[in-house]
């Protein structure tokens, strides 16, 4: 027989596994496919580079062959000038063989160039797609995270998934702590600036300030007293008017309320 502790633990674990199965993290899936896309893009780019390298190699070979061809032509011309028709014939036939090779290489070169252009275009298109996917992925991830946070808050409120909420709560605690620290730093600055919070190092200054405040407060009181005295001495008519309006107002109120009651 298993006790309460074990049975509760088993129930929690079973539920947690269920919840985890259900919540296969789409963010990981998104990141994974983005990774795959990047790999594909990398492959295409490598392909472009490979083709470009082959093309350059072909160009070098072509240059060499053309150099040889020119050289053979010159040799043939010289041989003919020297009256050595046999030598000239030999040079020209070698040149003809080279020309054949040059034509072959030129065909290959053209094919490669076409392929390279196609691949470059594909790479550009793929790059654009991958970029678009990345933006979309981040949006989805942010939305998902927000939704998840909402779920977690809901769970925390209902108090049902104390165990499952642990991860979320820890993250939240970390975030709360950061926010709290930031808020506190800001608040302390503000409070210090406004003088509401005493700067421990500046107690003496604050004493002076409060003394000054008291003094100025005292003069205000004196001024107020004097003003009131002056009013009492010379403004008794003013007081009568004020009293009259006050009576008028109180008189109008009982008239208003019954009207509302009837409606």
């Amino acid at each position, binding site marked *: 027989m298993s006790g*309460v*502790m074990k049975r*509760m*633990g088993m129930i*929690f674990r079973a*539920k947690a596994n269920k919840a985890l199965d259900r919540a296969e993290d789409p963010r990981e899936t998104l990141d994974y496919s983005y990774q795959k896309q990047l790999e594909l893009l990398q492959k295409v780019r490598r392909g472009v580079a490979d083709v470009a390298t082959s093309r350059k190699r072909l160009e070098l070979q072509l240059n060499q062959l053309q150099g040889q061809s020119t050289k053979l032509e010159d040799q043939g011309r010289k041989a003919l000038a020297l009256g050595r028709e046999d030598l000239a014939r030999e040079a020209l036939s070698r040149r003809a063989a080279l020309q054949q090779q040059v034509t072959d290489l030129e065909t290959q070169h053209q094919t490669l160039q076409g392929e390279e252009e196609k691949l470059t275009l594909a790479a550009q298109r793929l790059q654009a797609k991958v970029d678009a996917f990345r933006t979309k992925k981040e949006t989805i991830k942010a939305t998902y995270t927000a939704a998840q946070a909402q779920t977690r808050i809901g769970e925390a409120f209902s*108090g*049902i998934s104390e*165990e499952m909420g*642990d991860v979320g709560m820890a993250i939240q605690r970390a975030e709360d702590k950061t926010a709290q620290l930031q808020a506190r730093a800001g608040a302390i600055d503000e409070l210090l600036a406004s003088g509401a919070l005493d700067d421990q190092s500046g107690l003496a200054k604050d004493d002076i300030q409060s003394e000054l405040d008291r003094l100025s407060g005292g003069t205000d009181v004196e001024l107020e007293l004097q003003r009131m005295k002056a009013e009492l001495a010379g403004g008794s008519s003013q007081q009568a008017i004020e009293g009259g309006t006050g009576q008028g107002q109180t008189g109008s109120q009982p008239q208003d309320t019954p009207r509302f009651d009837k409606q």
Partner: protein
Amino acid sequence: MIVRIMGEGQVRLDDGHLTELNKLDDELLAEVEGGDEAGFRRTLAALLDAVHRLGAPLPDDALEPSGLILPSPDATLAEVRDMLDGDGLIPG
């Protein structure tokens, strides 16, 4: 072994203490099943006390799954029975 006390937090317990705690735990289950409210209250308090006494609390920001879970100190017998019956703690 990590023990969670619901509504309170987690406690790390040496596995050697489990036999001792299991006795109280089994008693508690019998009381839940038998509907012995007074016994349940007494045993739950004793069990929680023992866990507190023998274990060391985990810091709040620790992230460790609990091996065992205990009801909160103020849980009623009916609540605990509901949790253990049928669908368990979380419906669905």
